[in-house]
């Protein structure tokens, strides 16, 4: 047993933990949980806990339903909202086949594979997400109108605002779970908040995002309100994105940093951006995985809908932020397409794969966009070679389907499942008659 497992077992003893929740994530990014008693933990570390994988989205085919969940001791955390005494703790799990091999369909494993590939090239991959979400008063009925908890805007300070208390409580919980929060503020939409997690290696960040979503929902429930990470809950108001800052390190050196480069960006950084841009349409189905995601991308409100990069250009898909001089270690690029409902494991894996492809194949970085691309005309954009992101989930799937990069990064079985599942989602969505149509056409036609 290694140090970390010993630590976990000791902590469980010392802190009188009665239940351990084993968490893992299905292919669509939904958190799954199974609780075990402390006595079962040793064998869970050694062999994993068996469960029926066919019941979980995309995890296994019926014929090979048996799967094992093996907790990763480095993710051990006591769940604070369950009370500190006689509490409950959680760990994230790796999913294994009965032979003990990593399951091809485990999202966490997809990211691990991508990280291993980066590591073969000598890179460690760090991410720093800015997660946006909305807070609503709990509607009386499921069909009742959505009422945001306030009417404030970007960076507004709301006196005695619910959001304020909310953020303080949520951040308190997150910090107590060892998840550092960088920043938090009120966002552009009414009731919309943003909390930035501190940068960490991509696997930890993805684990943290899964935890974060749970914490936010728990705190909201506690306070009698409702939190949602839906990409675009209100038409006419900004959607909830998850802009993520990405960086690669070679040992202790930031691989994106070169003081002599333009914007202090190294050639590795430039190629990485070129990779992100060239493959952005292919990865959109993963970074923006729901039909609703495209309402955010194309519904205004500063969402990046066009494939271009810029420096401090908030309309660009990829932004090279300004950083303080002599802070070479913080060199990074920001991908603004991602939304808050993405499966973070898969999304970070495909972003990494796209960027690495750019590095490996020496992609040329196109010119930067200096204009606000939303304000350009269609033909201006065409002249500048700025392509749009997919219009909707259907388009995104079609592009994804022919992407070798995605098939390779996700593995054939996740790739196949994802396409099938999302096509079904699209077909179900297309069959809907929306309130918009009813109000617009019912009487008029």
């Amino acid at each position, binding site marked *: *047993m*290694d*140090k970390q497992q010993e630590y976990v077992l000791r902590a469980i003893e010392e802190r009188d933990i009665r239940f351990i929740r084993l968490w893992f994530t299905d292919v669509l990014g939904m958190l799954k949980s199974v609780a075990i008693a402390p006595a079962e933990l040793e064998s869970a570390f050694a062999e994993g806990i068996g469960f029926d994988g066919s019941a979980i989205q995309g995890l296994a*085919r019926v014929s090979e339903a048996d799967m094992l969940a093996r907790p990763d001791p480095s993710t051990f955390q006591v769940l604070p909202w369950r009370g500190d005494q006689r509490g409950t703790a959680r760990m994230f799990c790796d999913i294994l086949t009965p032979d003990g091999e990593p399951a091809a369909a485990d999202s966490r494993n997809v990211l691990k594979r991508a990280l291993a590939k980066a590591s073969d090239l000598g890179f460690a991959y760090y991410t720093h997400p800015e997660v946006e979400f909305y807070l609503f008063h709990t509607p009386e009925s499921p069909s009742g109108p959505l009422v945001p908890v306030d009417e404030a805007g970007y960076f507004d300070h709301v006196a005695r605002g619910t959001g304020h208390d909310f953020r303080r409580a949520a951040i308190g919980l997150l910090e107590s779970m060892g998840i550092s929060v960088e920043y938090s503020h009120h966002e552009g939409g009414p009731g919309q908040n943003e909390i930035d997690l501190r940068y960490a290696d991509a696997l930890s960040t993805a684990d943290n995002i899964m935890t974060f979503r749970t914490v936010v929902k728990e705190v909201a429930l506690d306070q009698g309100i409702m939190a949602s990470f839906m990409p675009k809950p209100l038409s006419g108001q900004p959607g909830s994105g998850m802009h993520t800052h990405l960086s690669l390190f070679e040992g202790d050196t930031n691989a994106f940093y070169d003081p002599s480069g333009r914007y202090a960006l190294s050639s590795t950084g430039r190629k990485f951006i070129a990779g992100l841009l060239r493959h952005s349409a292919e990865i959109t189905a993963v970074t923006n995985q729901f039909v609703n995601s495209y309402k955010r991308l194309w519904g205004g409100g500063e969402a990046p809908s066009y494939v271009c990069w810029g420096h401090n250009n908030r309309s660009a898909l990829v932004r090279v932020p300004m950083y303080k001089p002599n802070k070479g270690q913080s060199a990074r690029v920001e991908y603004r397409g991602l939304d808050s409902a993405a499966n973070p494991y898969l999304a970070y894996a495909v972003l990494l794969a796209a960027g690495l492809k750019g590095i490996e194949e020496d992609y040329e970085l196109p010119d930067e966009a200096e204009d606000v691309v939303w304000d350009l005309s269609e033909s201006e954009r065409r002249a500048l070679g700025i392509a749009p992101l997919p219009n909707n989930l259907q388009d995104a799937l079609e592009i994804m389907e022919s992407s070798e990069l995605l098939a390779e990064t996700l*593995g054939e079985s996740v790739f*196949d499942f994802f396409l099938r599942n999302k096509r079904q989602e699209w077909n179900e969505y297309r069959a809907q008659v929306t309130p918009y149509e009813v109000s617009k056409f019912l009487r008029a036609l």
Partner: protein
Amino acid sequence: MRAASPSTRLIRFGFRELARASSILAEPWFTEVAGDDGGDDLLADLARSADPDQGLLTLARVHENATPDARAQLNEVLRTPGERRSRLLAVVGASAALGDTLAMHPDDVALVTGETGQGILAEGADEVRATLLRAVGADPDDAAPVATAQGPTDAMRRAYRQQLLRIAATDLTRPDPLSTLPGVAATLADLASAALEAALAIARSETPDHHVVRLAVLGMGKTGGRELNYISDVDVVYVAEVAPPVEGDGAGDEDASGGPDRADLEQHAMRVGARLATGMARACSGTSLEPALWEVDAALRPEGKQGPLVRTLASHLAYYQRWAKTWEFQALLKARPVAGDRALGNAYVEALSPLVWTAAQRENFVEDAQAMRRRVEAHVPPREADRQLKLGAGGLRDVEFTVQLLQLVHGRLAPEIRQRNTLAALAALAQEGFVGRADAARLAVCYRFLRLMEHRIQLSRMRRTHLVPTDERDLDRLGRSMLITAEDEADVTTELLVRWRHTRRDVRRLHEELFYRPLLPATAQLSAEDAALAPEAAGARLAALGYRAPDAALRHIAALTEGVSRRAAIQRQLLPVMLGWFTEGPDPDAGLLAFRSLSEEIGSSHWYLKLLRDSGVAAQNLARVLSSSQYVAAGLRRAPESVPWLAEDGDLAPRAPEALEAEMDAALRRRAGDSESSATRVRYLRRRELNRTAVADVLTNLAADTTPGISSAADAALRGALRIATDRVCEAQGFEGSPTTLLIVAMGRLGGHELGYSSDADVMFVHDPRPGVDHAAAQTFALAVAQQVRSLLGQTGPEPSLEVDAALRPEGRNGPLTRTFAAYEEYYGRWSAIWERQALLRARPVAGDIELGERFVALIDPLRYAGGLDDGQLREIRRIKARVENERMPRGVPANRHLKLGRGGITDVEWTVQLLQLLHAHEVPALRTTRTLEALAAAAEAGLIDAGDAEVLRSAWRLAVRARDAIVLATGRTSGARIDVLPSERRELAGVAHLLGYGPAAGGEFEEDYLRTARRARAVVERVFFGE
């Protein structure tokens, strides 16, 4: 003698560089030591050393650097014949590196010549340890000695090299170096341990708070086994504990309220321990005036280089209980306290060794052991493979691995074999009856020989190498230093290489004997020297080798070897090595069982066992096919005459269709009138050819694109069946000869020569009434023949049946089974749906009247190769395909896993190719072929399909076709829904992957490959076929 010229004299004494030698001999110092005979006696002594030139030159250099006192002493030694002089001459002749040491420190000559006989080898480890500790000014009696000398690192290294000189001198002058070897290796290990102890004393002197930690150094690898060579990395592992507080330290006064807690103490102790370990390694291998000794390598510790350098005993224990891999237990087997805190070191061994001896029961032990072995063999760069002493086939690693694996497997039940030392372990294994005595003894000799070579190679320049030199002079020096003699001096090199080659060959052979021979029951042993394992031990060994049902395997082994028959006698010889070969396939148990069945079936045939015994490869090939293909196993049992194909000159090339035709013809002619016997013969011939192609496919990992032999066998069977059927119906209906000319046209995959092991034969029946014959009577006759053909071949029985399917005829299953040529002519003139045109692309006359066949081809050619397709036809064919996809796909099979009908599967590719043929065959003659890949290549050649797309389709088609065949070959199943589906059961998948030439346990890789290939193919199909 006096008359000899100076040069002749030098040559006689073995010198090669005559000019330099004679100038040295002219130097005054030599004259001083030469004596009355002009130095002949001294030179004769020197001539016995490995390299007289090098020796003489070294002596001259030592003389030059020596102080007057030392010079006098040297002269005295050189003047006096005897053992002391021989020791000096042997060292300077064999080792340039030690010669340099002497030249730099001429006083050390006294060490070389200061003793006789066993010399340092007779000293105990404690004495050596004391010598090195004193050299650094540390007290050997102190529990934790601390160095006090000035420049202790150099002092320690000097002392080490001085002792090394003593070892080399004894080593090189003992009359039987192979017997001396274990002692030399043990003393070298003791010397290394002593150096570590002294280095630790140095580290303590640099670490003021060293007393807070108890640190023990465990020797691993050759150091742990007391079998070190002259120069190699010294493998160590560190264990540390908090030292009890020293009295008067004040620590005891602190009560629970204020004292540092245990964790802090431990943390501090580990930090100090790590500093000591680092300091110790630096003293051995860091830069200093005196060159470094060797690397201290701590990579075998828990978590390898990522893990902390120093751990507590509890932490070591926890790691090994939970995390360690099989190879780590194998390494742990050698652990021995060599320096530092002795009690702690002993506690470590005591606590961990029980884990070593239960490692064989851990899951993955078998896979790990096999993987380790493969890694060892694959690791050597090919360029040096044949010069390697250590790695590669028949090398030292082979011996060590064999011994260690046997120890791990049996050590749990037999404490006697828990030895760290390779030779001691081997002796114990023989003593306890786990391996044969004679084999063990021979392996021990091989091991000593290889080690001696290694020692002598390293001694020469004190380099860490395991490569045998290629230079003639180096080889000569090597052979002479090993005291290898030959009648002609010049043949020493040849003799050396021959013995080395024999040694390597023996190691390989003995590996098998040691592992597998003792699995045979006592009654089956060849001699009393052989060991026979008790059932429990045999079961453990079989399980470790990869047999999943050891008890059953033991029963098979007993059945195969019992009795006094000649068969049993030969099988006793064969079985040990075959038991090993079976484990290389995916299913060793099935292989052994199949071998037993085969043997019981045909073992009494005189040629069978003789072939297995005498052919170099027949037995190995047999083991290979039996453990990987149930189809072949069943086939061989039914047709023993197939076994000779497994020999090196085996008749595995598919029979040419003409030859097959001729054989069939002769066979039927001989049996004219006996239709029952004829029918059996026809089916037999087909089965024989299926066996032949199956064996070839298994042995070549299905490397060819397709197996045309399967189709040829079906062709021949159809021809034979048609003849027999015709005769039978003539007799039944009272005709002298057939009233109508008959023809069978092959369709589908048979038409394309692309039949798989489980395919049906698609055909159409055609006939043409002879002039004057009543059409109705002719039709009745032809129909009866067609039905007869189908039942003859479709009959179930011992021979594999061939389903003859005529569904592709005009009007499909609603149309008559056979038609006259005129009816076909009329039908095709009027109707012909697009699917019929498509089906005709594959039409090929296969049996019956040749001239009618030609007419039929002339009839259909304009149809199938007509001018392209109009839009309606194109739409129609796409619609049919879409419908077929939807309807024919079995329920519950994921669309991407069905090899035939699935996305990107066989049908997808074939329809695409056929569409290109329909569209363009009228203008591109090369498209007019019934074969898929040929048509595809022609289409690419003509630019009708992008070359990249064509390649995607080709590889998808090929992989799917081969996977289907592999499924049949692996499982022996020729029908059922599962034979067309990529297996999802892991073991079955691995078996199929194995047949396709994937490495061991590569089922997942194959699955990923197939899914990727098919996905890409589907994208091409959608573009090219569906025009999307």
